[in-house]
């Protein structure tokens, strides 16, 4: 799932670079050509792409955790198989994106260590809790839906390996989204208890989904290096608008109510009321809505969200538990097994 919209790449773009090479590089970008790892690129671009791909890879393997916890509780054989396959896909996306990052010059082990020691980040959205099966449905529908919207635009970027990885990931995400849509539809056409489970989970995930695309745009976002160099191709606010226009009417169709909510420190809703700003402007086709609580966003991103500590602790546990295995594989004398 994931996406890197809120990574906040700061690129000091023109420092100490050969102006002729720089001009050639920007001409390539402007001509819509793809850059490959061996091509010349400014140091700031290489660093920025590494940071973006690494953040995305981290997000995939952290993103596997909240849903992974529900594999053993999925309520039918079909859902159990689908959820295992879905989480497996996310791990696979992580693997592909770590490979892209490795080509940009950082070892996988270093990336995993930086992740578990908090030196690098992952997507904020995974710091929210998934306390019921309804949350799994909403994550697959809303968050994977948001990820597809974001990643489709990232597939229009300029860095070849990342672009190709996005295209492949997007194909798989389309399955996840369909599965999420089916889960939400099943809940919302189910018993009273199931519909309530769906609504409560929607209340927990609607705002994290809106925040998924990152904070409101900086002035002149289009002219800043991440967009000028096509690391990103659409601004956060534009992506958010596309998301609302697609998902607000879909939620209403499913019988879900869109609420403005207040949450406790554990990410559980303690107050909710209908979003009175929610309406469709017939002339523009855009939905207006109440903005997310951006203070909350920055609080969570700084490590103080409901699940930051839990997610990192589990990732660290997995890294430490597996260390002897990696050690044996990399330094052992096993060689290849004999042919069967």
């Amino acid at each position, binding site marked *: 799932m994931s996406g890197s919209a809120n990574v906040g790449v700061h690129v000091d773009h023109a420092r100490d670079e050969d102006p002729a090479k720089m001009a050639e590089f920007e001409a390539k970008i402007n001509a819509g050509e793809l850059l490959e790892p061996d091509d010349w690129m400014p140091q700031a671009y290489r660093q920025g792409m590494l940071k973006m791909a690494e953040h995305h890879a981290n997000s995939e*393997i952290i993103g*596997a*955790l909240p849903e*992974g916890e529900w*594999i*053993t*509780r*999925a*309520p*039918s*054989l*079909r*859902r*159990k*198989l689908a959820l*295992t*396959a879905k*989480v*497996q896909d*996310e*791990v*696979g996306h*992580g*693997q592909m994106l*770590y490979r892209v990052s490795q080509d940009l010059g950082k070892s996988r082990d270093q990336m995993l260590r930086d992740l578990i020691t908090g030196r690098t980040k992952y997507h904020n959205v995974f710091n929210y809790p998934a306390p019921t*099966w309804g949350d799994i449905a909403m994550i697959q529908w809303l968050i994977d839906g948001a990820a597809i919207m974001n990643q489709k635009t990232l597939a229009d970027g300029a860095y070849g390996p990342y672009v190709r990885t996005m295209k492949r990931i997007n194909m798989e995400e389309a399955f996840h989204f369909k599965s999420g849509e089916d889960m939400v539809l*099943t809940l919302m056409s*189910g*018993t009273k*208890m*199931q519909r309530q489970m769906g609504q409560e989970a929607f209340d927990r995930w609607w705002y994290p989904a809106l925040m998924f695309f990152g904070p409101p745009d900086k002035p002149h976002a289009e002219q800043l290096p991440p967009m000028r160099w096509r690391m990103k191709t659409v601004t956060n606010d534009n992506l958010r608008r596309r998301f609302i226009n697609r998902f607000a009417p879909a939620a209403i169709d499913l019988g879900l109510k869109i609420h403005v909510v207040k949450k406790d420190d554990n990410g559980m809703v303690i107050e909710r009321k209908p979003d009175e700003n929610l309406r469709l402007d017939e002339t523009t086709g855009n939905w207006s809505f109440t903005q997310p609580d951006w203070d909350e966003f920055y609080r969570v991103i700084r490590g103080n969200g409901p699940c930051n500590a839990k997610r990192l602790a*589990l990732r660290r*546990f*997995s890294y430490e*538990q*597996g*260390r*002897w*295995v*990696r*050690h*044996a*594989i990399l*330094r*052992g*004398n*096993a060689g290849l*097994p*004999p042919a*069967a």
Partner: protein
Amino acid sequence: MITLPDNLKRPFADLLLAVADDKLMLGHRNSDWTGLAPILEEDIAFSSLAQDEMAHAQALYQLIAGLIGTSADALAFGRKSEAFRCAAIVEAPDEFDWATAICRQFFCDHFDRLRLRRLARSSDKPVADLANRLAAEEQIHVEHVDSWMQRLGRGTDESRQRMQKALDRLAAIAPSLFEPIEHEHELVAADVYPRAETDMFETWRNELEQIANDSSLKLDLHPPSPQTIGGRRGKHTEHLPPLLDEMCEVYRLEPNAAW
């Protein structure tokens, strides 16, 4: 199914439940590693093994459901622990110890391959066809887990010691896989569960010992005592009820609802 005499229906359902329940529990335990395995590439592979086992269970439950008149999901999620027919080894938790997970898979995959090959010769054609297909996938599992035994057995001193410890611990309960179901001899006599071409326990022990030797590991296996009554008759370890409580947590909220 139509040709099966009435007195063999229950034993046959029990036999297939033993296969399916083993696979569901093993797949369930393995699926818990998805996202947490020691290496990303193996995370993906192990998750595929988990999906294979659970999908095999699903296919078998569908056949059993036809035989006794229920649904696959009701068999997986709607039974009390004493109605399950799985063996003690698949109930054992691994506590996220990779050596235990691999050794458990090692004992079970080799056993399953032999059991499915037997069922592939069953006089019941739907079961024979399914077993034949599943045995081909089990072959891949066996090759995968054997390579892990070798890599970790011959890896470092630490990995060998960890593997030896897990192997010893599980070797004590692995023969529980061979406990016969009630009236199994009648299924054998009717060729529904054809006699193994060679003694199944001996074949299994030889296969495992050879891989263990190749992996610098020691393995000592003893046939189960014929007096012991265990999982195949519904007498389970203390690990099964909590496993079922977790697995059925959501299903039990509304057992008759679609999820």
